[in-house]
Structure formats: C-alpha cells, structure tokens
C-alpha cells in the first residue's frame, strides 16, 4: 500500500494528516501522483495546482517531481521547512 502524508498548512487545508491506498494504476512518478490528487478537486485541486508551494519526500528523503513512486512507498507533501 502507498502511504501519503500531509504536514503543516497542507494538512490543515486538506483536513487530513494522510491516507493509505493501493498504488493507483498508471502512477509511476511523484508528478503522476500530484496529477491524481489535483484531479480530486476541492482543497486538493487548489493545493496540487500550485506545486511551487510544495516540497516532497519519498521514503524520508527529499525528492523531485520526476522521482519514481512504487507500491509500499511513503510519500510526504509539505511546505518549505521552517525549523531551527
């Protein structure tokens, strides 16, 4: 199963900390996943239409939108970090 996580204002706006789902057919990259999430419309449509606001991690490492996505991966979407 694919695990998707949302942090900070993404989670607030989506009203959801994450979800677990089977790898959707045809999804091979982070960009493919972003396109599927955007297609849901509503808050998902708004957020995933503006990928410049979002950072992505695949299995705990920062990734770009062309990174491959496989079944059982953990994909996290979040805004630029502000710790320290």
């Amino acid at each position, binding site marked *: 199963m694919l695990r998707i*996580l949302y*942090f*900070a*204002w993404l989670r607030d706006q989506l009203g959801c900390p994450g979800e677990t789902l089977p790898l959707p057919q045809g999804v091979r990259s982070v960009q493919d996943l972003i396109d599927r999430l955007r297609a849901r419309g509503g808050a998902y449509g708004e957020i995933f239409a503006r990928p410049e606001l979002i950072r992505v*991690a695949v299995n*705990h*490492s*920062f990734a770009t939108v062309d990174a491959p996505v496989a079944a059982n991966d953990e994909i*996290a979407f*979040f*805004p*630029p*970090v*502000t*710790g*320290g």
Partner: protein
Amino acid sequence: MSCVTVRVQADTFDATHETALLLRRRDDVGGVGAFTGIVRGGGGLVALELEHYPGMTESMMRQIAESACTRFGLTGCTVIHRVGRLEVGMPIVLVLCAAAHRKAALEGTEFMMDWLKTSAPFWKREEFSNGRSEWVQPRAQDDAATARWGTLGT
C-alpha cells in the same frame, strides 16, 4: 571516531550536560562550539507550535550531523530539536560541535544550523496575543546561507 547524538523531544535540554557527554573519555577536544535557538518575541507573538515529520526528521538531522563531522573533522556533535508549544524566551534547538580547534568547532556549528533551517522537516506556527495563529514563511536568506556550503553529502 566521532560521536553523533540526535534527538527530537518536547522537553528542554541542558547544554552543560550535553557538553560534558561530548568530552567523556576523550582527551583530543580543544573546544566546543554551540548555538541555542530561542523563541524571539515581538509583534504580539506569544508562542510557537513546532510540528515535525517523525522518522524523516531524525534521519535528516543525522545526515547533517555526520556530514559536519566529516567536513570539519569534529570529534563529536549533538543536535537536539524541541517540538510542541514553546513560549517566547524558551530554547528551541541546541547544536554542539566538539573539535581539536575552535575554528572547526564554530564553523561546524554554523554549518549545522544552516542545514537544519532548510533541510530538517520542522514547521512553526506562530500564536499571537490577539488569538491569531499562522504558519511561519521560510526566509530566502536561510536558503542563501545554506547554499554557500554547497551540497550536504559527506
């Protein structure tokens, strides 16, 4: 061999105690550089709420610390980052770098803080005295500070 300690915790930390741990059973340390980040007030700020990505946070903090040890020849380093609600004046983060000489210890400390600011998955929400609350925006100067070190890789 250098010794790396990485922790994410709600509680505060004790720099004196953590420094003593970096010196234990070693005679090759000439200095320990340190930075303690503090919740700075102003504009009606009351507190910060710090959120993080468990698992990835520790992994990134360890990568940053190990990279600093290799790059600056540190004998050891420690990073402790707090999460949860922290009021104005409270400590947020502690970085300690031990080395044979002060230059490496202080440069290692700068390096770790710069990378933590831009690469460790923490997010801050500001809580103001009028009840308003908002997520902190990243600062361009933090990216610039990190860029001068090149890549993180060890």
